[in-house]
């Protein structure tokens, strides 16, 4: 796309599953992974005569998310039917929200990863509560193809979050999704697990091109079927390229062709148009007569706002302001989720140095969690234990390599710092013993003493290694210091 300067314009529609025990309109479980069609009842099967009743918790969680996204919460919200036929939609309509959504006109700020400059503000058009459909599975049997339908997921509560077309690059879209996911997990509103389908993304994208005839836009394409944030980024990049190519060949612009829907093929790394053209969708929305409206008083919104736990942006700022972390480190910690930040703060509260704690969390702790597939809550080392360990390091009682061994021991056995040290035979070497060891080593290695005297101070490193062979508990820094002193003392008669 060399001829014209262009901007990629992206808007996202994100569906997240709300963390309720039961479905939106019936009391069947929302647990993931149950055998097909074992979590259904007459309501979510859409059997004749059944009626929906709204899950209170789903409304509360949706409201919490909407408030955290700085949305306006109208005093009255209602539900509508979106009519279309699909085998995983047993009622022939989806209960969703049309003209009076639960919330609208919010925003999410994306932090600048460098910690400088102003955050990027992505406006939220609306966030509304609706039900999920079931699952269709393709099955080839004896020459003709069937689909198998599992309705376990039918009726699961979803929050649909629609952004304004404010995103300007595929990477920015991925940043937005990361930040949104982080926000929702801080809110404890959703698990946001793309593998389990608790977060799904559709993207609308087109290009704005500067041409000699002025600014033109390419037709908007909706991309579906992306199963990771990386896939979203790649699909958008592919689609931007494809639209640029297509524009150069056809010259077609927005409005000249109907909006197209394309699916992302992750294997082939391309987007593909639908094979069969359905009749243009006409969802015939109308108010759901089986449900009554929900009213939300301003006091209730205020209470939800007041009860919000610290959100990612706040916690980043706190880590920088209260603990002196630099923005990059604060970002790394906050991106690991609220539990890790809590752990960090507890460690510091128990007397650990903040920077040291931050380094340990980013390295040893995260590595351990990844290797062992643990969450921070499952880590056998409590924050107080880590703090104690880090205090010993700071006090010079334990050098870092030994401290790592102690930490591993604590992870493996759940031991306290003292017990782990004892088990590893780590005791502090008495000053006189250390002095004696250094004297012996100097006596045994006169060539090293010579080298040092000759100005090659790095030769002391060999002595440190030998000292550790004799006694693994010695502190290398002290060995170095004592040996230097002894050599210097011997110089002055």
């Amino acid at each position: 796309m060399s001829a014209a300067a262009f901007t990629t314009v992206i808007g996202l529609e994100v569906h997240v599953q709300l963390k309720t025990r039961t479905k939106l309109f019936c009391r069947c479980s929302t647990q993931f992974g149950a055998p097909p069609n074992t979590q259904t009842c007459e309501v979510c099967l859409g059997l004749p005569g059944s009626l929906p009743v709204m899950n209170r918790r789903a409304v509360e969680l949706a409201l919490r998310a909407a408030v955290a996204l700085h949305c306006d919460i109208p005093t009255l919200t209602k539900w509508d039917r979106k009519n279309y036929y699909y085998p995983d939609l047993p009622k022939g309509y989806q209960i969703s929200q049309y003209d009076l959504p639960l919330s609208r006109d919010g925003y999410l700020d994306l932090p600048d990863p460098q910690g400088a400059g102003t955050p990027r503000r992505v406006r939220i058009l609306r966030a509304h509560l609706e039900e999920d459909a079931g699952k269709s599975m393709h099955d080839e049997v004896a020459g003709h193809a069937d689909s198998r339908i599992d309705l376990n997921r039918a009726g699961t509560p979803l929050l649909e979050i629609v952004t304004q077309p404010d995103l300007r690059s595929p990477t920015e879209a991925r940043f937005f999704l990361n930040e949104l996911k982080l926000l929702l997990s801080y809110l404890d509103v959703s698990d946001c697990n793309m593998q389990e389908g608790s977060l799904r993304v559709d993207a609308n994208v087109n290009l704005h091109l500067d041409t000699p005839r002025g600014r033109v836009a390419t037709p908007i394409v909706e991309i579906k079927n992306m199963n990771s944030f990386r896939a979203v980024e790649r699909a958008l990049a592919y689609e931007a390229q494809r639209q640029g190519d297509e524009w150069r060949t056809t010259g077609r612009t927005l409005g000249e062709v109907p909006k197209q829907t394309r699916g992302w093929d992750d294997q082939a790394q391309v987007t593909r148009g639908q094979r069969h053209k359905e009749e243009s969708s006409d969802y015939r929305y109308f108010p759901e007569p089986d449900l009554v409206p929900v009213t939300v008083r301003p006091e209730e919104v205020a209470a939800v706002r007041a009860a919000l736990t610290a959100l990612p942006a706040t916690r980043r700022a706190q880590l920088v302001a209260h603990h002196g972390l630099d923005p990059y480190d604060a970002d790394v910690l906050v991106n690991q989720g609220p539990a890790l930040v809590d752990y960090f703060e507890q460690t510091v509260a128990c007397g650990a140095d903040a920077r040291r704690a931050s380094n340990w969390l980013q390295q040893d702790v995260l590595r351990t969690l990844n290797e062992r597939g643990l969450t921070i809550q499952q880590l056998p080392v409590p924050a107080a234990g880590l703090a104690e360990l880090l205090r010993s390091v700071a006090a010079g009682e334990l050098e870092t390599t030994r401290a790592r061994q102690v930490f591993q021991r604590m992870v493996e056995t759940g031991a306290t710092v003292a017990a782990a040290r004892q088990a590893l035979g780590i005791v502090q070497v008495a000053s006189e013993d250390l002095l004696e060891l250094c004297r012996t080593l100097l006596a045994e290695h006169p060539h090293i003493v010579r080298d040092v005297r000759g100005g090659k101070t790095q030769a002391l490193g060999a002595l440190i290694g030998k000292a550790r062979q004799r006694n693994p508990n010695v502190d290398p820094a002290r060995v170095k210091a004592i040996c230097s002193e002894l050599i210097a003392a011997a110089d002055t008669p």
Partner: protein
Amino acid sequence: MRLIHLTVAQLRDALAAGHVSARDVTQACLDEIRRVEASIGAYLAVDEAGALAQAAESDGRRAAGRARSPLDGVPIALKDNLCTRGQATTCSSRMLAQFVPPYDATVVQKLRAAGLVLLGKTNLDEFAMGGSTENAALGTTRNPWDLRRVPGGSSGGSAAAVAARTVPGAIGSDTGGSIRQPAAYCGIVGLKPTYGRVSRYGLIAFASSLDQVGPMTRTAEDAALLLELIAGPDPRDATCALRPVPAYSQTLDQDLAGLRLGVVREHFEAGLDDAVRQAVQSALEVFRSLGATIHDVSLPHSRYGIATYYLIASCEASSNLARYDGVHFGYRTDESALLRALAEERGSAAAPDEVDTPLVRLYRQSRSEALGAEVQRRIMLGTYALSAGYYEAYYLQALRVRRLIRSDFDRAFGEVDLLLGPTTPSPAFCAGEKLADPLSMYLEDLYTVTANLAGIAGLALPCGFTRGGLPVGLQLLAPPFEEARLLAAGHRYQQRTDWHTHVPELP
């Protein structure tokens, strides 16, 4: 007096006194069904063995002093759009001919909990869409007063069953007059409660914002007894009112002196049959003699009722009936024949991509094969009226007019306690008479639909006969949740008249 002639209230007393057993009563109903059913056709299913077993259990409970309610052991029939667990519930549609719900409607649960004997399921216009029970795919029902005539509809089976004395009471549903109109045609009492008074859970939906379940009986007193049993809040129906249920049967003997009765001017205009007019006017005199004062009242927007109703009901129905698509339950077309036909069509089509996918064709063919013509007409109307470009002009405009209709009633009930008029413009018509002209059939609902649109309560009562011996129905309308007032007025009227005691002569 024969057992089948006893009212629900009389059966209650006889059972309590030990003069009759539930088994005897049930057997008498079953015998009468066997005698007259061939000519009436009120039932789609009679659960003979089940009913007798329930009756025997009821007798056992009573003997042990553990009757579940005063009505324990009283037989009742259910319109076949109320879900009964483990028993086919068909809506008189080929679509649901084999449908067996895994659950009971709330109303059914309540009746079982009170110990009533569920005798069988009654015929209806398919999915309750119609006013003659002729649009029924699984049976034909006739009017017990004249077998050439229709029983009305859509609760025509329930009305005919009660009129023919095969059951003392039945449950119906009323979306635009479906309880009151057949009650009038068959000379019985039919109550459409206030919207939200009775749970709709398990009532197979026609138009969700209009549907309401109600009793069909021979007396207002019986209607009161059944209503107090089936009404009340239901956590499974979000549109069910949270109000407690008054003891309707305990407040029937109110003095009507000073009751302000409004005569709806628009319900006496052109199109009203003379015999109906006369019967209703004599009913007015009865109320006057009971101490009521009569007032002229206007409902200026009632003439728009039918148009408003057909739009709103059809829009909701088009969506409610989308679930009948041959996928999860109900009828499915022959799949292999469909695939063969499609392959041929693709082969010869100019644009093969224009031919339906197998799935779309499966939907279309299953629905068109198993849904009747009237149901398809209403689905078409509703789909059209909700579709892009028409929503505002049709659906939304209908909702605005609905508000005007409701305001008419609010204004009227500011001046009077109850409204009075005929239930239908004319008595029962002959089978086949209006089939070719659906619009003329719709117009029979002229006086009833506005109560559904406004969500108020309405009661149909027998108030006379035409010279040809056809029953005429009076309609009383009450403000929301004033069923007690409505039933008391009906009861006092029936104490003064004997129209409800006339029995059709059946061969």
